[in-house]
């Protein structure tokens, strides 16, 4: 059901463009208005969300510790998994954001005959996630060639690495294969395992399908249907230099690609995709394990109802006296 809704939503988006371009001739709307609006919503949505998060304090220092604390000098502490310093925290966050370290820890639990539980290594999710995110990033960076003139030297470098095997013309980018394969895997693992199927929502399938559709339309343009690259660049440059021109004869696939990317940007700040920015603010990861050496202040701390020693002694004075315990008031 969740998959169907996601697929239907995606289909509606695609049909919208096809009808809009082919029947209604809304090139300006889909080519200029929508992309600008999407970038504005993406940026303002995320900033709005970040400010929203920032308005709530972090009242307690609650890192999840994954290694030996820094205590007695002769015990080797774990500088990244139980960071006692800012540097350690930065290291932990870098590993988390760039290499998905926590996910790397993943295990798979199974039962074996004779009532035995075993925990094996389970790296597929980690590998697929890592491949997907890095491919996506490299692909986005490669797209800089459309929106910069002259093109920063990073782009040809990435293209050379990515097209290292020089298969076909234009040469095949490895990331194009990888992103599709990893997305397909990430989609399949949600549907194949009963646990994952149970916990997956529409909001989990939809972005996978959306990004998959973006990747596939891009791949179609590059390898199959072909588009006028120079023309698209001219169009894109028009957008980034705020002198938008609507290109004359661009394949509708390009409009689909562009509209789906815009949809992704708009969808971003209303969805779980916020994990991209939220991970930086996660208090179980971005705080140091120095709780007992540096005091953390809670800005909304307020006095609570307490039971004082005086009240306690008043209640138990006779019994304390009889037991020979020292008293404040005889």
């Amino acid at each position, binding site marked *: 059901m969740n998959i169907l809704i996601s697929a239907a939503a995606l289909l509606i988006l695609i049909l919208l463009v096809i009808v809009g371009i082919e029947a209604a001739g809304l090139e300006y709307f889909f080519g200029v208005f929508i992309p600008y609006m999407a970038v504005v919503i993406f940026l303002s949505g995320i900033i709005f969300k970040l400010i929203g998060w920032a*308005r709530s304090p972090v*009242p307690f220092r609650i890192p*999840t*510790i*994954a*290694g*030996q*604390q*820094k*205590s*007695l000098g*002769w015990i080797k502490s*774990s500088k990244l998994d*139980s960071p006692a310093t800012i540097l350690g925290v930065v290291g932990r966050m870098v590993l988390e954001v760039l290499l998905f370290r*926590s*996910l790397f820890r*993943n*295990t798979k639990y199974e039962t074996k005959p004779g009532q035995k*539980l075993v*925990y094996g290594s389970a790296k597929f*999710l980690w590998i697929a*996630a890592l491949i997907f995110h890095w491919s996506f990033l490299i692909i986005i960076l490669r797209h800089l060639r459309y929106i910069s003139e002259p093109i920063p030297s990073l782009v040809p470098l990435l293209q050379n690495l990515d097209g290292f095997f020089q298969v076909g013309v234009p040469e095949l980018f490895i990331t194009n294969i990888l992103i599709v394969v990893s997305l397909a895997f990430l989609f399949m693992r*949600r549907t194949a395992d*009963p*646990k*994952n199927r*149970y*916990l997956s*929502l*529409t*909001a*989990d399938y939809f972005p996978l399908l959306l990004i998959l559709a973006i990747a596939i339309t891009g791949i179609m343009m590059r390898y199959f249907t072909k588009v006028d690259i120079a023309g698209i660049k001219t169009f894109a440059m028009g957008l980034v230099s705020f002198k938008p021109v609507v290109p004359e004869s661009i394949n509708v696939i390009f409009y689909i690609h562009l509209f789906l990317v815009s949809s992704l940007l708009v969808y971003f700040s*209303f*969805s*779980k995709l916020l*994990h991209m920015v*939220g*991970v930086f*603010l*996660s208090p*179980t*990861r971005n705080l140091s*394990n*120095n*709780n*007992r*050496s540096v*005091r953390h202040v809670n800005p909304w*701390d307020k006095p*609570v109802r307490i*039971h004082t*020693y005086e009240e*306690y*002694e008043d209640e*138990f004075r006779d*019994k*304390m006296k009889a037991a020979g*315990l*020292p008293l*404040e008031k005889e």
Partner: protein
Amino acid sequence: MSDKKPTPEELFSTIDYKASEKDWSKPHIKFKVGTYNHSGVPKNVEYLELPNARKWQPSDDDWQLPDNWKEIIIDGIKERLDKFRSLKIFMDICVRCGACSDKCHFFIGSGDPKNMPVVRAELLRSIYRNDFTTAGKILGRIAGARELTLDVLKEWFYYFYQCTQCRRCSLFCPYGIDTAEITILVRELLNLVGVNIDWVITPVANSFRTGNHLGIQPHGFADSIEFAVDELEELTGVKVEAPINRKGAEVLFVSPSADYFGTPHYYTLLGYLALFHEVGLDYTWSTFASEGGNFGSFVSHDLMKSLNMKIYAEAKRLGVKWIIGGECGHMWRVLHQYMDTINGPADFLEVPVSPITGTKFDFAKSTKMIHICEFTADLIKNNKIKLDKSRNDHWKITFHDSCNPARAMGLIDEPRFIINSTCNNFYEMPENTIKEQTFCCGSGAGLGTEENLEMRLRGGLPRANAVNFVHEKHGVNLLACICAIDKATLPPLMEYWVPGVEVAGVHEFVGNALIMKGENERKVDLRGEPIGEPEPELEEKQ
């Protein structure tokens, strides 16, 4: 548990991971006897000035909630979103990757898909979406939103009291989403409308009044300590001092109340007493701060604060310089991650310095409170105590990292160093079940009741299974730990899943191995059992 207790085989065979139920969003809870806890006793709810004290039980159809209970809950969520960035982040960024799903001991032991941490959090997240997000307001169910109903509330009660706040899921989450944080906050919400459990409420009321969860009054406390002193003298021939409420001592010692009232905690207490005497520590117990544990933290941040406050207050009144805390789990979550914030700064205390070794415990320079394992490890490292390891030779030991010392503090090597210094036979359980990946005993966060026994046995299964592994492989017959709830709840767990394995605190080994000046020849350990190699009749399996 119901009238007939299932055998381990029967219980194991009921676990099914197929998630046969299709859609989690439709709540329906059957309160099956053995899997939930009884409600808080009205008199104690009233004593704590918590709302809606009344006679009720979770299995009742009518929970006698206030008319505006929904409003109270939704306002409560709003208030907490404003106070806790963690809540906002954890509500917004979960991608449901499922990495946490099979990390929860309750899921492993029950197969109930709502015990997957991600779904447990979704129980709240779905309400959050409905009332606090744009997508949820517009798209409703498609966006994973659902309305708050009585059934949802009942589901919250059921599943957020099937979370022991052990934080194992949080370790594996790529964003560090911490179910313990969510559980703490949902339990706060439930308490706003008077939904709570007695095993939490009554200890909190006791602790508020008498200073400890068990409700032991000062003279009773003094009796217990005195009794322990006498028993230690009988066992070792050494008469130790155990001062109580003594002003001017250098150190205040605070341990969980079960240490002086429960077994096997009691042997750990004997270990503390022997050790402090032998190194001549100038210390005192306190009757007012006679509880290190903090069941308040299982109700709300406010009650955590109001119980925890006694430790610093008593340190100040008695004029001590610094504090040592005993072996306890959630206690150390509060002491390590919360105490300084909620009741500090403890500027009337001094940075802890061991009077025996001169070691300055800089890592506790702000809280001024160290863990007994840190204190003892330092003594051993500096050769300040004489130990005879062979006195623990009748034990083959494995160590259960208690959740909070491991995942809130990183207290991992200290207890191992102590065990290895006091015992000859130590075997680790499989690596995915220890240290930061440790499995909970299944009874933490106030769930350790008789009426909840089935769920406890299920939740404790992963731990028990790992113990069974070393039990079969190495003949392990003792499970060591540093947590009072562990010591209370692991023995029945072992008896059920791994018969033949006892439970002990780390300082019991210290007490056994410690060579005390003027002691008699030790023929028995602190339990009064003969020491030395185990009798050969104990079959060893390879």
